[in-house]
């Protein structure tokens, strides 16, 4: 496999891009976009085909995931703090899971990546330049797929799954509307807009995920095969 992964910015102290082999594949999308389902299918497909695969996602670090969860429950963090807390969580997993896996030549499947974090912060009015510097620590993935689903469809999928809309996924901290239903629609369209803005710079592949699980999966497998077999 081709070795080397460059970073978006300054990178991580003492980490050399040429030591990072493997493949880094990112799937982005809102809750209800079918992201988790697709990732489970992809892991199974990759492992069956004999590719060692590691999964990462947001809020899963040893260092701060519990504290982040606790702080979110109380909704007491202001936006810069929340942003840096998530960045710490990301950096911890980056250094302890993603980079070692890439060094070992594994395929890393990331259930969301810096783009979700940046989009959330942009919607909350954080400066995109500040975010770009902050996430200069992130390696550039080999492929990024954004599962795009209309907010109206997301509502239906979330309600049919859990009969409720998540506080944060509805952007209820934003005061967009007192009613969670309206807030969800407004927040998710703002997130969609932020992703489209990020897409211009980070060039990820927007996948129409209003379709069935199967047809989205077929498209992902085809595109990922091309990335893996590229060298």
């Amino acid at each position, binding site marked *: 496999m081709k070795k080397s992964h460059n970073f978006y910015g300054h990178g991580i102290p003492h980490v050399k891009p040429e030591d990072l082999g493997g493949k880094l594949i990112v799937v982005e999308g809102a809750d209800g976009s079918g992201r988790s389902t697709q990732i489970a299918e992809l892991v199974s497909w990759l492992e069956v085909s004999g590719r060692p695969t590691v999964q990462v996602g947001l809020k899963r670090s040893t*260092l*701060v995931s519990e504290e982040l969860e606790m702080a979110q429950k109380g909704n007491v963090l*202001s936006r*810069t703090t929340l942003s840096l807390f998530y960045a710490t969580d990301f*950096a911890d997993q980056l250094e302890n899971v993603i980079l070692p896996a890439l060094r070992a030549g594994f395929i890393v499947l990331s259930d969301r990546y810096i783009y979700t974090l940046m989009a959330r912060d942009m919607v909350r009015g954080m400066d995109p330049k*500040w975010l770009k510097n*902050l996430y200069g620590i992130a390696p550039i993935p080999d492929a990024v797929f954004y599962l795009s689903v209309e907010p109206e469809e997301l509502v239906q999928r979330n309600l049919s799954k859990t009969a409720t809309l998540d506080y944060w996924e509805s952007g209820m901290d934003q005061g967009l509307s007192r009613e969670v239903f309206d807030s969800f629609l407004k927040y998710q369209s703002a997130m969609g807009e932020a992703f489209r803005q990020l897409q211009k710079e980070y060039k990820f592949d927007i996948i129409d995920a209003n379709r069935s699980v199967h047809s989205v999966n077929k498209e992902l497998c085809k595109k990922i095969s091309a990335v893996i077999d590229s060298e």
Partner: protein
Amino acid sequence: MKTFAQLNFPGRLIAVEGLDGSGKSTQIYLLKRWLEAEGIKVYFSEWNSSELVKSATSKGKKRELLTPTTFSLIHATDFADRYERHLVPLLRAGYIVLCDRYIFTAFARDVTRGCPPEWVRGNYAFASQPDLTMFFKADLEVSLNRILEGRPKLKFFEAGMDLRLSADPYESFKIFQGRILDQYLAMSKEFNFVIMDANENVEKQQVIVRKLVGERIDLKKFKRRSPLPLPPALAGSREEEKEIEEDKAA
């Protein structure tokens, strides 16, 4: 980077910086006591003290989980929490805010640990410049002795053991502190540090600190307009005092 005065905040921020053992914490504590006694609205904030973030930081330190990057980010998170929830509202409300360490601590330490300076500075770009930054400069040997006398056991990150400078914590601590001092001195001009002679005795230093603060900040503007409200149990006694005073006046 603008100061809070330049940004038209009614409050003012005073920061102290320096190596461990430079005596800065003693000086800012004595400054706080004086301002309080003068009836000035004052608030004190310490580096790495946000309730929310502290448990993660201490876990990271105890288990030696932190890398230069996560060390930097978790301290930035801690600072952001204190900055947004305490410092900014207090400065808007016309307080004098005293900070034992400010963003320059991160600039010096994180860069010594190998983080790119532009990255660290960028992450703290949301914070404004203090209205007065006093840098307590003691001879390296003096600082080291103060710390090493009082506390024979050095903590892992405090000694910079993560940098693998030396297998001996004391040796590592000395090299690490020396490098941090170099970083501080290199940014001293850029951020308008007032260099304080921390080899001088504590009382003399405090005289200089108070004089400097009095010259730089028009303190009478920061007095409380009315005494602090007392808890109900004590409120009665203040009423009585007032009556007695009124009687005297009559």
